[in-house]
C-alpha cells in the first residue's frame, strides 16, 4: 500500500442537507469505523463482505452521535484502491462535524483537495485524462457541459489529433533521416505529400479552435442580458425563469441598481441571466452607474432580452438598441401582455412582428421564450455531434500547435534548411502531444488535482 495514513472528508456539499456522506480511505478505515460503529445486528464491519451496507449507530463512548448507514468498499476494489468506508449520516452540520471530529481524534487526517482521486490515480484506478474528466464531471452542472466532459473522457477529438500527430511524426523522421544521411543517397520525404498533411492539420486545428468559443460558453453558461425600462418587469421575468425570489422585486422604478446574475438550465443548457438596471435618461448618480454597467453587460452577452410594457410604444428605443448593438441577437419581449385586449395584441403584432407577447406574471409566453433562446444559441451546433473543445488547456495547446504548423509551412515556402524546419515540427508535435497525453507536462499535473473539491 502506497500510503500508511487514513484520510477523511465530507463527500457531499458542506452545509445542511437531508443526508451527508463522510468518506474515509486508508489502511485503518474499516478498523477505526468499526471501533465506533454499533450495528443493529451486532455485526463487526471487519468480517463483512466488500460492497455491503450496514445500519447502525456511530458512538463516541457511550454517547450516540447519529443513526447511520455504513458502506464498506475493501481495497483494491474501491474508488481509491484502498479500504474505503462511506458513512451516510443525517445532514445537520453539527452531526457532520461531530462524526468527522471523532475520526480525526481516532487518527484520521483531513483529506486535501482531490486527494481521494489522487490516491485512485496513484493506485492505478484511473489514468490522468480520466482524472481530469472526473474534475470536469463534478463541475459540470448542465447537460451540455456534462456531455462535453463525457466526450472528453471517451477520447473525443484526441483520437483525431493522435492520428495526425502520427503522420507528422512520420514525416519528421523522414526529414531527420534526410539530414543525418545527407552524404548518402537515400530517398526522402515527399514535399507535396508533406504540404498536403500540413494543410489537413491546419484545417482540423482551426475547426477545433473555433469550437472552443461554443464549448467554453456551454461550460460557463450562455450570458443573456435582460434590458428594459425600470419597472417593466425584468425582475419578475427573471424570477419566473428562475422560479425563485432571487432578484429584488418592488413597484418603485429603479430598485435594481446593480446587475444581478443567476443561472438557469433550459433544455440541458446553462444560461446566465443578467438583470440590469433599466436604460433611461436619469439624473440619479447611482442609477447612471447602473445604466453604464448595463451597457457593459450587453456587450458581453450573447443574447439580449429587450423587455417593454406591451401597452407602450417603444419602437424608437428598440431601433436605438438595435443600432447600438447591430451584431447582437436581440429578443424583443412585450411584457404585461395580460393587460392588452385581442385587438391591441393584433395591432402590436402588426407594428412589431418580431415581438414576443409575454406575461412574466402569469407565465404566458415563457415556454416560447425558452425555446427561442435554445434555438438562437446552441441548437444545431450541439445536435449534429460536432466535436467541441471546452478545456482551456486543450485550447491553448491547439493554438500553439497551429502557430508552429504555420511556421513549418512558411519555412517550407521560403526554402528554410530542414534542420530549422525540424525545430518547428518538434514544437508542433509537442503541443499536439500535450492534448493526446503523449508528452508529459509537469505543470499540468499540479493543476489537475487542485481542481477538485475536498472529498473527491
Amino acid at each position, binding site marked *: 500500500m502506497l500510503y500508511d495514513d487514513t484520510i477523511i472528508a465530507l463527500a457531499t456539499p458542506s452545509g445542511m442537507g437531508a443526508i451527508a456522506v463522510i468518506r474515509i480511505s486508508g489502511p485503518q478505515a474499516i478498523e477505526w469505523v468499526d471501533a465506533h460503529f454499533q450495528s443493529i445486528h451486532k455485526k463487526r464491519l471487519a468480517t463483512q463482505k466488500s460492497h455491503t451496507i450496514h445500519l447502525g449507530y456511530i458512538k463516541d463512548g457511550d454517547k450516540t452521535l447519529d443513526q447511520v448507514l455504513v458502506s464498506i468498499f475493501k481495497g483494491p476494489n474501491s474508488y481509491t484502491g484502498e479500504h474505503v468506508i462511506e458513512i451516510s449520516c443525517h445532514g445537520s452540520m453539527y452531526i457532520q462535524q461531530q462524526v468527522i471530529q471523532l475520526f480525526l481524534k481516532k487518527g484520521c487526517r483531513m483529506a486535501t483537495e482531490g486527494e481521494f482521486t489522487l490516491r485512485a490515480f496513484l*493506485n*492505478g484506478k484511473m489514468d490522468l485524462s480520466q482524472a481530469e474528466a472526473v474534475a470536469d464531471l463534478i463541475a459540470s452542472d448542465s447537460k451540455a457541459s456534462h456531455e462535453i466532459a463525457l466526450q472528453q473522457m471517451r477520447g473525443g477529438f484526441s483520437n483525431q489529433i493522435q492520428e495526425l500527430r502520427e503522420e507528422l511524426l512520420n514525416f519528421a523522421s523522414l526529414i*531527420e533521416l534526410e539530414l543525418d544521411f545527407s552524404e*548518402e543517397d537515400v530517398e526522402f520525404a515527399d514535399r507535396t505529400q508533406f504540404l498536403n498533411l500540413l494543410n489537413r492539420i491546419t484545417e482540423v486545428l482551426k475547426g477545433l479552435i473555433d469550437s472552443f468559443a461554443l464549448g467554453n460558453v456551454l461550460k460557463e453558461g450562455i450570458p443573456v442580458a435582460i434590458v428594459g425600462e425600470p419597472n417593466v418587469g425584468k425582475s419578475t421575468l427573471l424570477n419566473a425563469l428562475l422560479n425563485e425570489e432571487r432578484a429584488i422585486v418592488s413597484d418603485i422604478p429603479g430598485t435594481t441598481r446593480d446587475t444581478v446574475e443567476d443561472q438557469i438550465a433550459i433544455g440541458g443548457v446553462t444560461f446566465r441571466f443578467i438583470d440590469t438596471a433599466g436604460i433611461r435618461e436619469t439624473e440619479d448618480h447611482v442609477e447612471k452607474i447602473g445604466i453604464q454597467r448595463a451597457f457593459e453587460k450587453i456587450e458581453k452577452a450573447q443574447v439580449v432580452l429587450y423587455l417593454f410594457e406591451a401597452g407602450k410604444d417603444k419602437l424608437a428605443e428598440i431601433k436605438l438598441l438595435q443600432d447600438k448593438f447591430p451584431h447582437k441577437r436581440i429578443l424583443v419581449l412585450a411584457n404585461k401582455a395580460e393587460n392588452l385586449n385581442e385587438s391591441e395584441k393584433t395591432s402590436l403584432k402588426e407594428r412589431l412582428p418580431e415581438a414576443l407577447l409575454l406575461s412574466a406574471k402569469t407565465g404566458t409566453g415563457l415556454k416560447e421564450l425558452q425555446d427561442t433562446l435554445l434555438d438562437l444559441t446552441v441548437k444545431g451546433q450541439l445536435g449534429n455531434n460536432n466535436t467541441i473543445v471546452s478545456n482551456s488547456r486543450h485550447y491553448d495547446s491547439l493554438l500553439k500547435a497551429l502557430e508552429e504548423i504555420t511556421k513549418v509551412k512558411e519555412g517550407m515556402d521560403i526554402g*528554410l534548411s530542414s*534542420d530549422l524546419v525540424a525545430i518547428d515540427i518538434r514544437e508542433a508535435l509537442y503541443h499536439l502531444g500535450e492534448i493526446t497525453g503523449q508528452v508529459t507536462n509537469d505543470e499540468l499535473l499540479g493543476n489537475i488535482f487542485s481542481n477538485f473539491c475536498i472529498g473527491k
Partner: protein
Amino acid sequence: MFDKEYDVIVVGGGHAGAEAAAAAANMGSSTLLVTMNLQNIGQMSCNPAMGGIAKGQIVREIDALGGYSGIVSDRSAIQFKMLNKSKGPAMWSPRTQNDRMRFAEEWRLLLEQTPNVDFYQEMVSGLLVENGKAVGVKTSLGLKIKGKSVVLTNGTFLNGLIHIGEKQFGGGRAGESAATGITEELVQLGFESGRMKTGTPPRVDGRSLDYSVMIPQPGDSKPEKFSYLDTHKLTTQRDCYMTHTSELVHDLLREGFDRSPMFNGRIKSLGPRYCPSIEDKINRFADKDRHQIFVEPEGWNTVEVYVNGFSTSLPEDVQFKALRSVKGFENVKFFRAGYAIEYDYFPPTQLKHTLETKLVDNLFFAGQINGTTGYEEAASQGLMAGINAHLKVYDQDPFILNRDEAYIGVLVDDLITKGTEEPYRMFTSRAEYRTLLRQDNADLRLTPRGYEIGLASEERLKNMERKEKESSDFVSFFKNTSFNPDEINPILERLDSSLVKQSDKLFKVFSRPKVTMDHMLQLDKVSEYVTENYLNTDVLEQTEIQVKYSGYIEKEKNNADKLLRLEGIKIPKNFDYAKLKSLSFEAREKLKEIEPVTISQASRISGVSPADISVLLVHLGR
C-alpha cells in the same frame, strides 16, 4: 615487475583507450596503458577519416574538453571538408581524411609526451576484484598489476571472430589475435554480455585504379580544422574519388550469397544498420541499380586505398571479381580483403552516467565494449571514463555532461538509459537540442567545464573567453549600429532581396535569409570594425550564427530549460517501484533495471510511457 599501484589502468589502446589514458594522466593520475600490441596504438581499424555528421561535432567537443582526438586528426589530416554548409549551422559538420599511419604515430607520440603515462604490452586476461571493487588486472603471463581503477576499452577484441566467406578465425582485427578470458570473468561476476558484428571493406593498390573515369571529391577550398588550439591548417590536400557499383557488380556479388556468413546463418549477431555491407545494401534495396563508392587515399605517400561503401564479408574471390567490374577498378589489385568481425559487448544499461559499472566499483567501460560503433563515439567515451576514473580515485564529484550540453552527454545518456541492440552510432537527430550543440560553439559550451576539472589548459580557456567576448561585442555592434538605405540597397538588390526605404539596425537586415557575413563585410563600417578589433574568422562565424539563427537558438534554449526542470526532479536511490501500482508492469521492470537518477532520464527509457512519468511526477511531487 609491477610493484606500483596505479591510479588508473587502461586496457586497450584504440581511440577510447588512448583518450582515457591521456585524460586520467593529464588530470594527475598515475596511469598505465596495457595493450596487446604497442605498435597499434591509435589504430584506425576502418575508414581513414575522422568526423562527419554529428561525429565532427563530437571531435570538437573532445578537443574543447582537453582531449587529443582533434589535435591528432589535424596533424594527420590530408583533406578537410565542412559538410552540410548549405544547411542550418546545427548541421555543419567537420570531417578530415587522414593519413592512417601518421594518425597512429601522432597518438603514440602524444601519449609518450604526456607525463604520468606508463606503457606495457601484453594481453589482459582478467580483473582483480575485491569486495565488489576493481583493484587491478591479471595478464596472460600471470602478472598481477594493481590499480585503484580499471578502464576496459577492448574494442572488437573480446572473443573476436573474423569471417571471410565460409572461412572464420579468431582475431580482434585482421592480422591480430583476439582477447580471451575477460568476457568469461565478467559474466561470472554477474555481467550480461552479448554479441555484435561489424565489417570493413577491402583495401586496394591505388596504382591499379583508373581515376580518370571517377569523379574527384576535393577538400574545401578554405580548409578549416578540428582543434581550437593552434594546430596548423592544411595548405595542400589529397582528393578522394567517387564511382558507382552497377547491376553487373550486384549480380556478381549475388553469386556468392550462398557462401556469405551473413546469409547462411553463420553470423547471428546484429551489425550496424546505418553502415551496411554491400551485400546488405543490394539485398535490402533491391530496386536500386547502383550504389556510391568513395575511393579514399590512406595517406600522403602510401599507394594503399580504402574502398568506402564496399564493406563485405563475402568470399575474397567474390569480392575481387565484383570489384573488378566497378568503373575504374577493372585492373584492381587487392592489398587486403574485406571482412566481418563478431565480438562481445556488454549492454551499457549496466553502467552509470560516469561509465562506471553498477556491479563493480571503480571499473569503467568505454567504446565498442558498450555496443557503440565509430572512432568518435569510442574516443569520447574513453575521455569520459578516463576523467571519471581519475575523479573517483581522488574522491571528487563525478563529471557528467547533460543532453543539452554536448553530444557526448546525449551519447552516454542514451547508452545507459536505453541500451542498444545494434552498434550505436551518433546522429544529429539523437540530440533534442542540436541547434545548441554545434561544432562552432563546442569550446564555449565545454572548455570552462574541462578547465574546471583540470583537463583543459588555461590557454584553451583564454582562447574561449576571447572568442566569447569578441563575438558578443560584435553581435551588439550589429544590434546598435544603423545602416543607410543607400549603402545597403545595392547589396540587397544583387541578392534579389526586397529593398529598404528607411534606416534601421544592421541586425535586422543581417537576419534576412540570403544575407551573410560576406555581404555585411562589404559595408565599410563593418569591415572597419573587424580590422580595428583584429577579429579572426572564428569570431566572424560565431557572430554570424548568433545573429542569423538567434530565434531558433532562443527557442531551443527555452525547450532545453523545460527538460532541465524534469532533470531537477531526482528519484531517490533504491526507490520501490513495485508499490506504484499505476505504473505499467513493463515500466516497473525497466525502471528497476535502469535505476534512473532523474524523472527526465526515466522518461527516456523505452517502455516507460508519458502516463508512467505522470505517475512518478505526481508521486514525487507531493
